[in-house]
């Protein structure tokens, strides 16, 4: 007989019933040990002849534990496996069998053909099945009340009672006791029940909340609102959409839009264009699918770039608030401009600012994408034409900490800083960190961000010395004051601070008038013709006009006036309305 040696004993820690190993199946534990043993001993896997495991309670996870462990541990398919049950003596029996196999030569005749033997048990993963009513497993507090005659310990997480009719008893596995006999349902059942209830409630709510048009308003006029409704520029898009919705609400409050002898309910269909060209194109396609043929927006330059080719192809009249070059052009005859770009009003405003603050250099700061650089280049021309030396500084959109930029600006040391089309959130931080860096020069905001961001960044008007800014709608104009008051009265909340709110409220008024004149909301060409032939007018700002022929080659830019605000030596002045001539 050959001699056999027991070497390299290795084991996992010993867990208690329901303890640290409750979530593991026995095969996992065994395979971990065997893999570890192979690593320690550097024995080639194909040198193993057999794997003997003691397991008193085999389960469907590993009905032949030795074989399953061998395969899971990466041993070749030719390696056999055995499972032994001699109750508490199973482990020792496994060793005895292995010794007998090696000593008797029952294993292969090669010099080194080790058998592996081990003992493993995981009570938490064992299935108990008895034919008697009372359960003999230790620590159970009481027998089952439901007349069941069988229960199984299923998977480590749950114990089910089968054969009880409608009742089931749930219990926590591995705790050694059943905690409830009262028919507590499982999480799965609870989830199913909750799901069906939630679905019913949702359907009921949807049905209840769906408005049905009254008999007096059996027709509907659809108008789109396109802009960034999420993301960093959402303040712009949401404010613009609110302006559109407000104008629609005013018309609806008066009974609806008069079209062809009927009064039609005005409904706003909004779409999040995300301030991207792809978003703009998607908006056009979506609105077309909703039979919308006139939109307020897109708001930003990237969106306009993507929107208007699709709008031209499909036939959608659109009002853009972008500052891009050629925002309106004969190539896209259905695109109108809801406000004026810097090239229109900037000469007037920059002259006024320079006359007041007497600066000779200006640093123009803007994001480094189309929305920033288009406006930035226009400001360069405008300031240069005003006799001010312009410098440019573009930053990565998405920047949240402007401390490095502020330090750079301090190194440049301009007399004035123009924050151009910096979004409101960025504007707050930029101004704040400029102040921290010690900047005491003039701050200009002709990009339409408004004063609020600057004041917030500075920590109060009292901390500001010299500032000038554009109000795309002059906030101190009685008409705009009334507009905001009416918004609060009708919509039940404060009007958005962002100036695009008023811009689109006014533009939507004009657009709806054109729809009424055209007699349809479904024919873009008719609506566009109606727009061109009417004199723009607002109940809040009075009559305006169209311009753009000299600048863009097409007269489709509204001339509702902007305003210029100033803080001079810490004192805030009234916002002055700047009249824009029509063409």
């Amino acid at each position, binding site marked *: 007989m050959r001699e056999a040696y027991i070497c390299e004993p290795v084991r996992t820690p010993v867990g208690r019933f329901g303890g640290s190993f409750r979530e593991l199946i026995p095969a996992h534990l065994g395979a971990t040990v065997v893999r570890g043993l192979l690593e320690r001993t550097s024995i080639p896997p194909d040198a193993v002849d057999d794997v003997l495991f003691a397991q008193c309670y085999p389960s469907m996870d590993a009905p032949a534990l030795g074989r399953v462990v061998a395969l899971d541990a990466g041993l070749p398919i030719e390696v056999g496996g055995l499972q032994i049950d001699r109750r508490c003596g199973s482990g020792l029996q496994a060793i005895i069998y292995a010794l007998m196999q090696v000593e008797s030569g029952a294993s292969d005749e090669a010099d080194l053909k080790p058998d592996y033997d081990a003992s493993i048990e995981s009570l938490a993963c064992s299935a108990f099945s008895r034919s008697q009513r009372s359960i003999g497993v230790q620590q159970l507090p009481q027998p089952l009340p439901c007349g069941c005659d069988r229960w199984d310990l299923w998977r480590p997480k749950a114990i089910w009672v089968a054969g009880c009719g409608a009742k089931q008893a749930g219990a926590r596995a591995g705790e050694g006791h059943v905690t409830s006999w009262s028919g507590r349902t499982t999480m799965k059942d609870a989830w199913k029940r909750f799901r069906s209830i939630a679905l019913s409630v949702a359907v009921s709510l949807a049905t209840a909340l769906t408005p049905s048009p009254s008999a007096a308003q059996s027709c509907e006029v659809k108008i789109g609102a396109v802009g960034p409704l*999420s993301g960093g520029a*959402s303040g712009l898009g949401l404010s613009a959409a609110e302006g559109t919705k407000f104008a629609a609400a005013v018309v609806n409050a008066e009974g609806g839009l008069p079209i062809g002898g009927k009064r039609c309910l005005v409904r706003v269909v909004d779409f999040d264009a995300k301030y991207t060209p792809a978003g703009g194109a998607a908006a056009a396609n979506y609105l077309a699918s909703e039979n919308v043929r006139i939109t307020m927006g897109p708001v930003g330059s990237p969106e306009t770039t993507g929107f208007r080719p699709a709008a031209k192809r499909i036939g959608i009249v659109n009002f853009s608030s972008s500052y891009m070059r050629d925002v309106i052009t004969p190539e896209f005859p259905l695109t109108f401009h809801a406000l004026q770009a810097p090239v229109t009003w900037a000469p007037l405003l920059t002259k006024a600012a320079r006359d007041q603050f007497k600066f000779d250099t200006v640093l123009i700061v803007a994001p480094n994408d189309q929305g920033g650089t288009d406006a930035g280049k226009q400001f360069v021309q405008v300031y240069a034409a005003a006799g001010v030396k312009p410098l440019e500084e*573009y*930053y990565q959109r998405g*920047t949240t900490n402007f401390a490095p*930029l502020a*330090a*750079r600006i*301090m190194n440049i040391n301009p007399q004035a800083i123009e924050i151009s089309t910096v979004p409101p959130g960025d504007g707050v931080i930029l101004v704040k960190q400029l102040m921290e860096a010690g900047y005491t020069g003039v701050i200009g905001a002709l990009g339409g961000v408004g004063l609020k961001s600057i004041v917030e960044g500075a920590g109060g008007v009292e901390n500001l010395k010299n500032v000038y800014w554009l109000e795309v709608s002059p906030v101190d104009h009685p008409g705009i004051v009334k507009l905001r008051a009416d918004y609060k009265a009708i919509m039940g909340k404060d009007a958005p601070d962002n100036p695009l709110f008023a811009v689109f409220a006014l533009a939507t008024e004009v657009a709806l008038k054109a729809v009424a004149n055209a007699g349809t909301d479904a024919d873009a060409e008719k609506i566009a013709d109606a727009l061109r032939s009417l004199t723009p007018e607002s109940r809040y700002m009075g009559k305006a006009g169209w311009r753009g022929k000299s600048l863009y080659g097409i007269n489709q830019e509204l001339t509702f006036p902007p305003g210029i605000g100033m803080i001079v030596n810490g004192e805030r002045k009234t916002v002055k309305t700047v009249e824009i001539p029509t063409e």
Partner: protein
Amino acid sequence: MESAISTGLIGLSLGSQYAMIAIGFTLIFGIMGVINFMHGGGYVIGGYLAFAVSSGMGLPFPIAVIGAAIGTALIGYLIETFFVDKYVDDHNATMLITLGIYLVVTTVIIIIFGPEPVSGFSFPISGVLRWGGLYFSYSNIVVLVICTTTIVAVYSLIYRTRYGIALRAMADNRAIATAQGIRPGRMFPVAFSLAMALAGLTGALVTPILVLEPHLGEGQLLKAFIMVILGGLGSVAGATIAAFAVGAVEAYSSVYLGGSKGALVLFIIVLVILLVRPSGLLGREARKA
């Protein structure tokens, strides 16, 4: 010279903030193998919780910060327990799940607080320490001290406590660690909570200095990706070193090259380092288990 020193201070401040974010992100990846797209959301949630507690409830700012960290940790615990745990071995699923949760959270924040930056939420200490041409705001000094202390505390937890040993064991080889009795069911939720708490604490401290709006998380997540990849996925020390390196590079390149070129320099440096050492500064070649 003063400009260079001021820029260095800015880089140090940025680095400490980035390190807090990066450590949490790499902790989750290292231990659970989960790329947590919700990590930036933790930053935003921390900011809004601090805002709600200090401005809404009128409690002192330190209480608001602690409350924000605890609240974000709790949210992280719930996310891991109810959404991530079941799919923790499916990388695609966990990415989508955490991304979806981030989108939902952002939308909820917009509905409750609005899309625009909040007003009336500022750091309680204002003013700037000036010394000649140098300047460093008091708020940044406080944040730097707190962030550094927290980083040291996290290090002590990970390298000097039994719990930390268990976490590192899980990161090293989950199968063996599990076989030693370390339960994923216990470790994962706590690791997730810790990571989210770090992000929430950073958000609570930094957003009153900068700005608080619903979409800050995207930028933070992008930065976290850069630092974690640069430092080596799963390496806490690597993420910390990378964070301070990124902070310094960002500061100096932005000040001396400008915003656009500054971002380009950062990406070029990351690219070069990854070409030379694809696993990152201190990362392993492949993540075990």
